[in-house]
C-alpha cells in the first residue's frame, strides 16, 4: 500500500476514471491550468485537455445545471464547486433537478453527475466560508451523499461515485486534503451505504463522518489513556445511510456520542441520534449525546474560531460525563 494524501487520492480517482471512460469529464472554476483552488485537479488538464477538464465562469448554477444536462444525454460529468459555501447559489439545480429528474419523469433517464466540493472550517475563513451543508443534501431523496474521511475512502468512493448512475454529492473537507493514509495499489471501489468501524471498543460508541472521524479517533486515543475503550464508527455515506453498523455498536456499548462538524440543531447528528435511539432503545444506558460546532456564524478571530469548533477534548469530556462513575477518575 502506498501512503498518499487525501488530495492525491482524489486526483488518482479522477485520473483513473477519466482513463477508463471517455464520457467522464470535469468542469468547475479554475480547475484546468490553475489546477483547482485546492489543487485536486492539478495536472489533469495537461493530460486530458481543455474539453475534458473544462474551466467555467463563476456561475455555479450553470455549472451544476450543465453537469445535469450533460449527464442526461450520456456524459458523466464531475463538477467541482470550489467550496460548499458557494453551493447555495446552485442548490436549486441539485434539489429541484438532479434529485428529481429520474423520479418525476417516471425513470426514463438517469443523472450520473458527481458534484465534488469541500466543506469544513478551521482556517479562519470567516462566517461565509466556514460552513457545513451536508445535511441539506442528505435530506433529499434522489441524491446520494458521501463524506469520505480517509485517503483510501476518498479514492474508492470517488470512483464509485463516478460510476454510479445517480447524482452524488461528494463532500470533501478542507482540513483533510493534506492528511495522509494508506491506499491500495490495485484498483478498488468502496461501496456506498456501508459504515466502517474505525476503531473497536466496548465502553462507548462515537459516531462521526468526514473530518470528525479523525477528531473522534483522537478522542478515543485520549480516552484509552484513561482506560476507556471507545468504538469509533465512520458513517462514510449519509445517504444511503447504514444505521445498522452504528446501532450494532451502540447495542454493545450502550452509550453513544454523535460528533458533527456542522451545527448541532437540525444537523446530521440529529438524524443519527434520532434513528439510533429507535434502533437501540432497549440497550441505551444514557441519552445519545451530540458534540458539534457552536451554533454561531463562524467568527474569523482565531481564539473564537478555535473555541467554536468541536475538539477531541469536548468529546472526551462528554464521554466521561456519560459513563458510569467507575470510569471517572
Amino acid at each position, binding site marked *: 500500500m502506498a501512503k498518499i494524501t487525501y488530495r492525491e487520492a482524489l486526483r488518482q480517482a479522477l485520473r483513473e476514471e477519466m482513463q477508463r471512460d471517455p464520457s467522464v469529464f470535469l468542469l468547475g472554476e479554475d480547475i484546468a491550468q490553475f489546477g483547482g483552488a485546492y489543487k485536486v485537479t492539478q495536472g489533469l488538464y495537461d493530460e486530458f485537455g481543455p474539453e475534458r477538464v473544462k474551466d467555467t465562469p463563476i456561475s455555479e*448554477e450553470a455549472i451544476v445545471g*450543465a453537469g*445535469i*444536462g450533460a449527464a*442526461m*444525454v450520456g456524459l458523466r460529468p464531475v463538477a467541482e464547486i470550489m467550496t460548499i459555501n458557494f453551493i447555495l447559489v446552485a442548490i436549486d*439545480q441539485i434539489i429541484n433537478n438532479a434529485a428529481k*429528474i429520474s423520479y418525476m419523469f417516471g425513470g426514463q433517464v438517469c443523472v450520473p453527475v458527481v458534484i465534488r466540493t469541500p466543506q469544513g472550517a478551521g482556517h479562519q475563513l470567516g462566517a461565509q466560508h466556514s460552513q457545513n451543508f451536508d445535511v441539506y443534501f442528505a435530506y433529499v431523496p434522489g441524491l446520494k451523499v458521501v463524506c469520505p474521511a480517509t485517503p483510501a475512502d476518498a479514492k474508492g468512493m470517488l470512483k464509485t461515485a463516478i460510476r454510479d448512475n445517480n447524482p452524488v454529492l461528494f463532500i470533501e473537507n478542507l482540513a483533510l486534503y493534506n492528511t495522509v493514509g494508506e491506499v491500495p495499489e490495485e484498483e478498488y471501489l468502496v461501496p456506498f451505504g456501508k459504515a466502517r468501524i474505525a476503531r473497536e471498543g466496548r465502553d462507548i460508541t462515537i459516531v462521526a463522518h468526514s473530518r470528525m472521524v479523525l477528531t473522534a479517533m483522537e478522542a478515543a486515543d485520549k480516552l484509552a489513556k484513561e482506560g476507556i475503550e471507545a468504538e469509533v464508527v465512520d458513517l462514510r455515506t449519509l445517504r444511503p445511510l447504514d444505521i445498522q453498523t452504528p446501532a450494532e455498536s451502540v447495542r454493545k456499548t450502550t452509550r453513544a456520542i454523535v460528533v458533527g462538524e456542522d451545527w448541532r440543531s437540525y444537523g446530521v447528528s440529529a438524524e443519527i441520534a434520532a434513528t439510533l435511539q429507535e434502533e437501540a432503545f432497549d440497550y441505551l444506558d444514557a441519552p445519545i449525546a451530540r458534540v458539534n460546532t457552536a451554533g454561531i456564524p463562524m467568527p474569523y478571530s482565531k481564539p473564537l474560531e478555535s473555541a467554536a469548533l468541536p475538539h477531541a477534548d469536548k468529546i472526551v469530556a462528554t464521554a466521561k460525563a456519560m459513563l458510569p462513575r467507575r470510569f471517572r477518575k
Partner: protein
Amino acid sequence: MVMKPAEPRRAPELSAESAVGGSAQSPPGAGFLTPDRQAQLLHWYEQMVLIRQFEEAAAEMYTRAKIGGYLHLNIGEEATVVGSMGALAPQDYVFSNYREHGHAIVRGVSPRAVMAELFGKATGTSKGRGGSMHIFDVEKRFLGGYGIVGGALPLAVGAGFAMTYQSSDAIVMSVFGDGSTNIGAFHESLNMAELWKTPVVFLCVNNLYAMGKSVAEETPVTEIWRKACAYDMAAERVDGMDLLAVYEATTRAADRARQDRRPTLLEAVTYRYRGHSMADAGTYRTAEEVEHWRRRDPIVTFRGKLISVGLIDEAGVDEIDKRVEEIVTDAVEFADQSPFPDLSTLYDFIYCESAEEREVTGG
C-alpha cells in the same frame, strides 16, 4: 476646465416592428406555400389544430377534476410551438418549461400518453409521476417540462456541450417564457452557452405576460431578443403568431447551432388566450387586448393562407378538424380508462440502478 463626460452608450433602440423577422415587402413564408410542400404544410396546420383541441379538452377535464394541480395551456401559442418544433431534426433535444403539452405533442409524443399523464395515470409519459408540468419522452428526445422558472436553461447548455463533446450533429432547444429572462439562470446560461459555443437555440416564448405582470413590469428591455447583446450572441425577434416566420427563424437558428456551433436567442412574440393557469381569470388584461390578439389567431391566419393558395379547401379543413377531434377524444378516453399507478410502485424510480454499485456491493 471641465471634462466632457463620455456619453453612456446604449444598444440601438429598435421598434418592435423593425425587429420582427422579415419585412412588409417580403412577408415570411410567402414563397413557401407551394404544392410540393402541401403535405408538410397540412401536417403543421393539423398539429396546430391538435394543440388547440387538446388543450381545450384538458381545460375541460380540469374543470371536471380529472386533472389536478396546475395546468398551463398553449392556446394562442400554436404557431410558435409548431413552427419551432417543426424546424428541428429527430436527433435534436428539447427542454421546456411547464407550458409544454404542445411542444411534446409536436415532437411526436403520443397525445394519449400526454393526456394520461395529465390524468396521473400509469400510462402517462412520466407514469403519472410528473403531471402537466413534467411531460417527458426520452424516445422523442423531449427532455422534459420543468417547473422552476429558468431552471432548465442550464440543462440545455450542458446537453449542448455534450453534443459537441460527442461529435453529434444533434442540437438542443431550450424553451422558456419572457418572465424567465429576469432570473439569474438565464444570464449564466446564455453567457456560458456563447462562451463555450454550444449548439443551443434559446427560444423565448414572449407571450407578453408572466402570470399577472406584463413584460414591461418585469424588465426595462421588453424586446427580449435584445438581451443577447450582453453575450454577443446572435439574436432574432419573430412574429410568434406566424407559423412560417417562426419556422424560418428557427431554421436559421438551428443551422447556426448545427453548422457554426453557435447559440441563438430567438424571441417569438405571441399571446396566451387563457390565464396563466386554470386558476387565473386574467383580469390584468383588457378584453380589447385579448380580442386584438385573437384576431391574429395563428390557426385562422394560417388556414386563410392555405385556402388562398389553394392548398386546402373547406372540406379539407373539416376533415382535419374531425380527425383531430377523434385523436383528442381517443386520448381522453385512453387517459380515463387507464389505471392509476399501483401503490406498490410508490418508491420506484427514486434512483437509477447502478451496475457498478451492484457489482461492488455484490447485491
